[in-house]
């Protein structure tokens, strides 16, 4: 219990501090900080719709956070979650459009699998370049993001364009490609359940399977792992591919659960949010879903902050930066505190 308190306290403290600083900025801009923060904290819970939106955002943030965290366990930085998400979405709409007449029981799994595979293949390019040629993965994943932007623009404006959309977007996928809904409208899509199950499975995978253990070992000491029979480069590549698969799944769920199609900009800022969640959770897979929930609430609330208090959107970015810095600082403070009391 005390340990849990120690774990949660820094998060709470840094969010509070960040809000204090952010509040000062808002005040300086002549807006009402109390009103602003009230809407940040309540939008997700005041209406069912707000909650649904938050959970849908949570799904994608969690998956992108895993896409970053799992390769990180092997010491590799996957900065390519947005490209993987977009390619996953492309794979998902391709199946969802081409096979749109199939019944859900067949089509939906195909759509999700197509997303997963597309994301895995996209990250697989980085993994291959890394394992075979030693190309730094930060470099290759960043570059592939840029390639994916062009690729989906092509798909959305030439392959299956929706001419009425007023924005590069594909036509809708078949009905059978959509995730079923839970409860009354506005309602959650089944991807939420899928993500919860996945979170549990991944935690077990990393903790208790031989491959998961080996991944963590590689991250802790590559040489020692090699000496003890772990096929390190293969694993580092595998970590990237698994991360990419999760990024791809995020894209597929966005298609099947949220948009019903692929559209430009659907990657939003999920890459950065995923990285932040991964870093804030300090690589701990169990903490990822919880941190991601906090970030999803903040993200949804932040945009309502400008609606309800007319606070410029930029301020949200500044508050997010503060949260990160204060969170890290809380470590230093905690270390000093513990050292002093020991």
């Amino acid at each position, binding site marked *: 219990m005390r340990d849990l308190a120690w774990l949660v306290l820094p998060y709470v403290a840094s969010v509070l501090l960040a809000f204090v600083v952010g509040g000062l900025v808002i005040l300086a801009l002549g807006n009402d900080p109390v009103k602003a923060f009230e809407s940040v904290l309540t939008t997700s819970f005041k209406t069912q719709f707000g909650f649904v939106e938050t959970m849908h955002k949570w799904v994608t943030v969690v998956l992108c956070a895993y896409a970053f965290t799992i390769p990180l366990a092997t010491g590799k930085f996957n900065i390519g979650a947005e490209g993987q998400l977009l390619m996953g979405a492309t794979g998902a709409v391709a199946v969802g459009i081409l096979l749109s007449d199939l019944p859900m029981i067949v089509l939906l799994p195909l759509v999700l699998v197509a997303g997963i595979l597309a994301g895995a293949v996209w990250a697989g390019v980085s993994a291959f370049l890394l394992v075979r040629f030693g190309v730094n993965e930060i470099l290759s994943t960043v570059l592939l993001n840029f390639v994916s932007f062009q690729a989906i*623009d092509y798909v959305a404006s030439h392959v299956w364009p929706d*001419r009425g959309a007023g924005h590069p977007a594909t036509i809708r996928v078949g009905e059978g490609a959509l995730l079923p809904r839970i409860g009354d409208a506005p309602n959650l899509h089944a991807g939420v359940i899928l993500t919860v199950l996945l979170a549990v499975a991944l935690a077990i995978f990393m903790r208790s399977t031989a491959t998961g253990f080996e991944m963590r070992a590689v991250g802790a000491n590559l040489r020692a792992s090699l000496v003890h029979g772990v096929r390190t480069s293969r694993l580092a590549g595998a970590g990237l591919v698994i991360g990419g698969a999760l990024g791809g799944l995020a894209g597929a769920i966005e298609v099947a659960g949220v948009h019903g199609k692929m559209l430009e900009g659907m990657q939003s800022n999920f890459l950065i949010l995923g990285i932040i969640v991964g870093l804030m959770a300090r690589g701990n897979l169990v903490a990822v879903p919880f941190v991601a929930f906090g970030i999803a609430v903040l993200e949804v609330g932040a945009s309502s902050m400008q609606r309800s208090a*007319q606070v410029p959107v930029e301020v949200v970015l500044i508050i997010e930066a503060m949260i990160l810095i204060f969170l890290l600082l809380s470590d230093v403070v905690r270390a000093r505190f513990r050292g002093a009391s020991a």
Partner: protein
Amino acid sequence: GSDSESGGGDGELRVAAIFSGPTTDADYNALGLQALQALEVGDTSYSESVPVPDIERVLQEYVADGYDVIWTHGSQFYEATAKIAAQNPDVYFIGEFDGQPEGQPENVWVIDRNFHTVFYPLGTLAAELSETGSIAYLGGLSLPFSYSEVHAVEQAIADSGKDVKVNPVWSGDFNDTVKAQQLTSQLLSNGNDVIITSLNLGVVGSFQAINETEVGKTWLTVKYTDKSQNGPDHYAATVKYDFEGPLAEVVDSIEAGETQGHYVIEFGRGASVALGDKVPDAARAAVEAAVEGISDGSITVELDQSEVE
């Protein structure tokens, strides 16, 4: 959040607007904000820089906040607007579209931006101005409305009987000034002497590029707002948009109980062509004739959204 706290009294409408970019863009979104603030209603509020994937949520939030009229500024938002409108029959929505949408809900007004019609005179102008016989269309994203603009320009050139070729290129982003600058330099050095831009802020970069070239030989046209101060010597024309009038008219209609409608922007109704001082008289006359022809119905500009490449 509201500009006037006391608003929302009886009979006073509460109007919300959603913009796709920052209202500081001195362009499409700034025009929108200006129109919103000119409204004489109880209370207004807006959200800016709303990405397409987030639009449904923001719409829902405004519905939950009890706004009477919600305006989405940009055709990329139309689909979501119609969807949310169907779910909330008591709230009125204003969407934007290019053409006439199918299945328009009872509580939705459409503002048709009618870009192709407005671009026709630019084609006429380009045909008059071009000496090399080669002009360029520089767009942002290759969307159906930009295809219709290209086709309208081609139609105008064909109608003028001149032998001028249109080279369409896309920078990939309406606001990427740097790409626009680089593309424009390239287009100019490839012999295109009139650049018809369909960009938002990106056009500032195009001006930088064209300012490097000889005055009187090369020309640039602009969309939405007058940006002639960026390069008065090469500035040929603006197709100006103004949402103040259209928005006020639509809101008035809604107040009067007319909840569904299709407002087409035309010359004199939200759109106009302004010509630069340097444009020769012959060209000026031709453009004026074209505008005249469109207004009196003697010229019909075809809406052709088929792909160009």
